[in-house]
């Protein structure tokens, strides 16, 4: 069974919960954390691979806890024409996939560095970031 690649997003309410432990203990899932970014801001994201027969139940559990679950395979698209190059996204991107080029003060997006945490989708005022789902 190939691993399922997913991205979890935690809010301040769930960031301090031992959620990955529950996936292992209660659902017998094999967990491989690809990248994680939680704290010091009490919210964050985690990209991980999950393997196990009770994968679907594990995802149901995550969602019941208020953790958002989305596939890692979904790629983010930067709609360059919409982007105003304000830069509001750059302090929210955990991997600097979205960053300011200085001194031009223009935004650049490097898809290879993208964790697909989807923070940029929420913070972009003009909705220039879109998921490919």
């Amino acid at each position, binding site marked *: 069974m190939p691993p399922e690649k997913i991205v979890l997003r935690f809010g301040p309410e769930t960031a301090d919960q031992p959620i990955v432990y529950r996936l292992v203990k209660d659902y017998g899932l094999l967990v491989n954390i690809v990248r994680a970014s939680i704290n010091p801001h009490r919210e964050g994201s985690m990209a991980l691979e999950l393997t196990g027969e009770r994968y679907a139940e594990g995802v149901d559990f995550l969602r019941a806890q208020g953790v958002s679950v989305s596939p890692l395979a979904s790629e983010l698209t930067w709609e360059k024409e919409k982007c*105003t190059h*304000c830069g*509001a996204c750059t302090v929210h991107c955990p991997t600097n996939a979205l960053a300011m080029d200085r001194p031009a*003060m223009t935004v650049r997006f490097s898809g290879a560095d993208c964790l697909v945490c989807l923070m940029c989708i929420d913070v972009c005022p003009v909705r220039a970031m879109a998921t490919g789902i």
Partner: protein
Amino acid sequence: MSSERTYEEINARIKAGKVVVLTAEEAIERVRDQGLTRTAAEVDVVTTGTFGPMCSSGVFLNFGHPKPRMKMQKVWLNDVLAYAGLAAVDAYLGATELPENDPLNSRYPGEFRYGGAHVIAELAAGRPVRLRATAYGTDCYPRRELETAITLGDINEAILFNPRNCYQNYNCAVNVSDRTLHTYMGTLKPRLGNANYCSAGQLSPLLKDPQFRTIGVGTRIFLGGGIGYVAWHGTQHFPGTLTAAGGRPLCGAGGTLAALGDLKGMDARWLAGASFRGYGTSLVVGLGIPIPILSEAVLTDAAKPDEELFAPVVDYSEAYPNAVPGNLGTVSYAQLKTGAVTILDRQVPAAPLSSYAKAREIAHTLKDWIQRGEFLLGQPAQLLPGPGAGLRGQTLTVKG
């Protein structure tokens, strides 16, 4: 050559193709290279620009009458309510108005994906917008209902009229609390997780004329990619001087302006609908003002660089919502533009909400228009009140 010049002399030079125009960035460089006096003698106009969210924006619309005629009492454009308490088929659509079925913040933080600002942007782009109106019917205006599609080209007038635009300076917003905040200054992470600011700094129009020596009623401007005018001072126009902790004056702050222009002459590239999670919608407006170098003193201000322009750092968890005066210090736009600032001895990542790259493009566009003779300077009928006018904001007293 004297550095004193009049509007008439500058406009004559524009018509003769001899005008010398620099963007504010270029003026800063020129003054650094060859000094103030020589630059003031050579340069006629300095152009500025800003491209940021400006909530107090909207459009007056006249739809034309259907047959039979109608006194539209309630009007919706793509389900966003427009104020119709005006003559029969006039309405005003505000940027922050939201669809009536929007969940708002009932599922906090709300997304606010669509609002008046987005309708304005669709109109500017020439896209069809659904117009729905109801009325009570009169002898002269019998029609009671209407539903149709309109485009900007179909209707009589669309006048962008923004009661408060182009803030002279703005807070650098931070969050000292333990929870994430969703504000009009964007998402603010807890414990000084980020610092969001919203000014083009050395390109920003009102920072470059802090004494209001040149900007007034009738000043011709770049507005939304077309030509607009300064109509009046903006609401909450309280021009003053930002000071450092010890009281040392730093730069201008508090001025605003009201701007108007024909939406039909604008370009959707310079009017964008914006959504701020947990807060609402806003219109990102492109606005640029040419500053006539009437004297060396005007150039002194117009050539102030980011190193000499500052923003007050304000906490949006306690101080701002509860209107507690004061700030957590000041930071220069030069520091902010590096992407990190020091606040309360912490290194804090900084991000703009206003596009510096687009502000630069606006200043260059305005420069081109003037150099090509397409844009003459408008001499103000009266200047906007300056810091000496003593305008101060009132607190609304809530009476039991």
